[in-house]
């Protein structure tokens, strides 16, 4: 009995050490962002004279407020489009009979297996030819249709009874109405999953904005923070850099604290990341 107890204690010790390794850097980050200049470099969690000085400097030096709004808009528009296009295509693939349905399905699956490196430059050249470089559209349109979302919606719709659709048609409901008014309320878990994945994916995306946006006014927050960090502008101002990281992380972290279960379920259900 005693051996079992020692084992249990050891297990909790190991887990706690592991948990601290994952949490400590974030707590330190928040502490450091509030610290006065000479204290930022230290590793203590709580500064002696906390203040918002770093955040003030940050708002003065870089258009971070603007980029926050940009990031929010991009994430909201991308997520909405992904859900609309995904459910429309998914519905057609799941519940409608037409020639070439299977072929279209396989083509969509195939595009998922392609690494993004293959399409990166061609997509950029398309953006140039459409004159979309340095516009808001360049950040949204390439992500407006997601093969993954289509497959998730298709699967969710396949699980719903045909009678639901037939009854709605008898009542004179249009196909669009069927998707969004009749079927959507029945697949809430799928909606939550796709919304979370697509929002987080869009919020954290950094390579694509670095490629298509040069105008500082249009930059997303991860992009602006990256350029600020590598551009040498932040060298003397560690506190400001940390403050920028805090502002970038905080919305996602807060959402995660409230909806932990949904976040984890969504991501685990797919095995996808980023």
């Amino acid at each position, binding site marked *: 009995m005693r051996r079992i107890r020692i084992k249990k204690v050891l297990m909790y010790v190991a887990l706690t050490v592991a948990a601290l390794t*994952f949490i400590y850097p*974030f707590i330190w980050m928040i502490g450091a962002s509030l610290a006065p200049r000479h204290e930022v470099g230290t590793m203590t969690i709580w500064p002696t004279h906390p203040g918002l000085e770093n955040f003030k400097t940050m708002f003065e030096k870089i258009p971070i407020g603007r980029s926050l709004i940009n990031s929010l808009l991009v994430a909201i528009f991308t997520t909405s489009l992904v859900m609309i296009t995904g459910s429309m295509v998914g519905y057609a693939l799941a519940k409608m009979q037409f020639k070439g349905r299977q072929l279209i399905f396989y083509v969509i699956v195939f595009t998922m297996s392609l690494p993004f490196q293959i399409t990166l430059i061609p997509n950029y*050249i398309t953006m140039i030819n459409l004159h979309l470089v340095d516009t808001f559209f360049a950040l949204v349109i390439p992500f407006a249709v997601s093969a993954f979302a289509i497959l998730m919606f298709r699967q969710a719709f396949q699980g719903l009874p045909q009678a639901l659709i037939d009854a709605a048609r008898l009542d004179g409901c249009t196909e669009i109405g069927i998707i969004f008014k009749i079927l959507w309320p029945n697949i809430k878990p799928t909606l939550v999953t796709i919304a979370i994945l697509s929002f987080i994916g869009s919020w954290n995306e*950094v390579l694509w904005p670095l490629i298509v946006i040069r105008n500082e006014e249009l930059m997303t927050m991860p992009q602006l*923070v990256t350029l600020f960090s590598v551009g040498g502008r932040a060298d003397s101002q560690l506190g400001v850099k940390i403050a920028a*990281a805090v502002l970038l992380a905080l919305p996602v972290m807060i959402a995660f604290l409230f909806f932990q279960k949904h*976040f984890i379920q969504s991501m685990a259900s797919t095995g996808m990341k980023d």
Partner: protein
Amino acid sequence: MKFIGVDNYSRLFQDRLFWKAIGNTLKFLLLHIPLQLVVSLFLAYLLNQKIRAISFFRGSFFMPVIVSGVVVTILWQQLLGYDFGLINRMLMALGFSKIGWLVDPDVAIYSIAVMATWKNVGLYVILFLVGLQTVPTQYYEAAKMEGATKWQQFYHITLPMINPTVFMVVILSTIGGFSLFIEPYIMTGGGPLNTTLSAVLYIYKQSFQYYNMGYSATLGFFYAIMIMTVVILQKKFIEKEV
């Protein structure tokens, strides 16, 4: 557009820096994948032992997964700094000498591999946890009756049962590892001596610093084919093992 045939490909095969970038990425994967497997399986195994406060532990492991790679990189830059980094300070306090985590050409890419593992491991903990929970408890009870040790149980029951998860984790961390970009871009810019120049970072530099769009597209295409080949080979190999 002008068709220039295979010129870009012959250039690719002679491009030393590209092959160096591929080599760096492979070195990265060589540490990243096994580390990811071992750490995530270990943590999932602990979480599966009827632990209290499981959602706290799970949540803390998961935190870096959802946060932007930019944030994680900025944080680790502070941890790995040569003069004032936390890790070197701890080493000094314990009487060891400092290590050039990001400035030593022999070390830098492995530091980045550890950081990337830290960022992603939480996701794989969850995947393994789901896998572990599907193993029927009768199997363990039967094994215990036969006098099997914990280690034997793990090796002969758990591991074969969660093989699909192992496979998924290997594939996902391979694909994720091949897209290594933002970490070296922010932390080292590819240095020291191009030892952390990842393939994607090189492709990015070719197009947006040297403006060789066509060549860069060739690199991207070639690299993508390479990734798919590696993933297919992994799949074949693992399926044969089962």
